[in-house]
């Protein structure tokens, strides 16, 4: 005759209270800890590439075609110290921020209208479908006729490069907000702008951030390209113009120094600015793995 019976674990394994407790957590080795940091791995990669560059350029020995890394860095340092590069960077960034800011604000207005009205949605969808495939730089000749040689032409082209990417991503982010969250927002009596700002914007933040990143990348590339075509506004050119000018002077290390500056600024914004925002928002909220 068997009947159900509960046998407690302590009866089976008669061990002391802390008898055979094995370690649940164990520290990783220092190398594993350091290698786990993405920045460390990437820095190592960059160092390897820098060494390859230096070795190859020394072997080639033709500073007119391909200067060595050390030449480039020395020129970069010189131009920084004599104030040329900081000036050029400042000119470029000023225009960039103007265009980026204006483009983002316009995108915000467009998407708020689009999410609240049907006609706004149609307008946004049609406009993004039309203008998103159009490279912003192709509007430059037109902009030059409309606004003349100056910052306003560049800002116009920048707005075009930022606006559609940000608006498209923000809008699709809004549409992707879960039905449950939208119902929760409605439950609290939120409508119109408070609803957009308190529910939709944070819920769609991963998409919005993606849009801002793409917008930034488009804007940065477009601006440098535009400056290559015409760079001098009010007697002070930007980074693109710096590259173009030095090519004409056959100062190739300076051209490389200019390119390096473009890369470094791009890296700083993408890896420091955006990643910091990401870490403090969507990563903290568990909205990104």
């Amino acid at each position, binding site marked *: 005759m068997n009947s159900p019976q509960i046998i407690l674990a302590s009866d089976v394994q008669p061990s002391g209270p802390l008898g055979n407790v094995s370690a649940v957590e164990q520290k990783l080795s220092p190398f594993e800890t350091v290698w786990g940091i993405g920045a460390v791995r990437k820095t190592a990669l960059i160092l390897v590439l820098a060494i390859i560059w230096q070795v190859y350029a020394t072997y080639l020995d033709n500073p007119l075609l391909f200067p060595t890394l050390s030449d480039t860095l020395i020129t970069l340092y010189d131009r920084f110290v004599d104030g040329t590069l900081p000036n050029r960077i400042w000119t470029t960034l000023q225009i960039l921020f103007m265009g980026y800011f204006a483009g983002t604000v316009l995108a915000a207005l467009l998407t708020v209208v689009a999410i609240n009205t049907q006609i706004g949605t149609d307008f946004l969808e049609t406009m993004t479908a039309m203008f998103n495939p159009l490279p912003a730089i192709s509007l430059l000749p037109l902009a030059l006729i409309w606004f003349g040689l100056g910052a306003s032409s560049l800002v116009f082209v920048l707005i075009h490069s930022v606006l559609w990417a940000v608006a498209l991503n923000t809008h699709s982010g809004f549409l992707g907000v*879960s039905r*449950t*969250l939208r*119902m*929760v927002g*409605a*439950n*609290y*009596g*939120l409508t119109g702008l*408070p609803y957009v700002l*308190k*529910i939709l914007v*944070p*819920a769609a*933040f991963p998409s919005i951030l993606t849009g801002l990143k793409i917008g930034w990348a488009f804007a940065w590339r477009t601006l440098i390209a535009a400056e290559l075509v015409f760079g001098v506004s009010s007697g002070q050119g930007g980074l693109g113009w710096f590259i173009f000018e030095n090519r004409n002077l056959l100062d190739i290390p300076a051209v490389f120094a200019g390119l390096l500056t473009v890369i470094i600024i791009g890296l700083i914004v993408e890896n420091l600015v955006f990643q910091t925002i990401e870490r403090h*928002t969507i990563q*903290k*909220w*568990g*909205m990104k793995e």
Partner: protein
Amino acid sequence: MLQVTPAAIDRPASATKPPLLEVDKVTLRYKTPNLLVTATESVSFSVNESDRFVLLGPSGCGKSTLLKAIGGYMTPSAGTIHINGRQVKRPGPDRMMVFQEFDQLMPWKTVLENVMFPLTVARKLPKHEAETIAREYIDKVKLTRAVDSYPHTLSGGMKQRVAIARGMAMQPDILLMDEPFAALDALTRRQMQDELLQLWEDTKFTVIFVTHSIAEAIKISNRILLLSPHPGRVKAEVVHVDEARQDDGSAAALERDIHNLLFASEPGHKE
């Protein structure tokens, strides 16, 4: 004692107080791309204060749709819904919803901020007052230790507890719960049912609870409305459900009765 009254017969006249919620001959229809679906047809019932009212029925009986209509997310194509004499027209914080989905919490807010949010937004309470109330209800659902955690670090059961705390902290006229424990594992689900009953003992809030589990309905409710599917119609109402006991087998008997009633029209169906 337990009784199952057919829908048509008059319900036992409730106390002198008018019912808190009155659903009168409500027909709900919604459109799919190529169909007009009738979810419920001429459904009437009323809920009194401190009722634990369960809408029970097989899938397709329109119980969730009915709850959404009470929540104000849908307008009935016929009939009216009144709460405290006011007609329900849009969603509002007097009817707090607790959903089945875990993503009902705002991932960008901590547990405390999630519970505080409707208090500051909908009830316009000052921050410190909202925080006091929020902390009190977070304590009630036993999440004191997780108060500053973000939702993605919580388990499913903890998330539902936050949602319940958030709903209760608003002290709504009615708490609407749409299968809140359906996505939980069986053990957690049991625990949550017990905790919900304990909370009810504390504050005697009014709740409408949607479920498709007969056992859950019997455990939680004092009244059950049985709905039949396609379209949803009232089949019966079970009252004094809280008299059913596990130990003398009356709960099991009631469960069997309800099961037979719900599936009576399907001859092939066996348990």
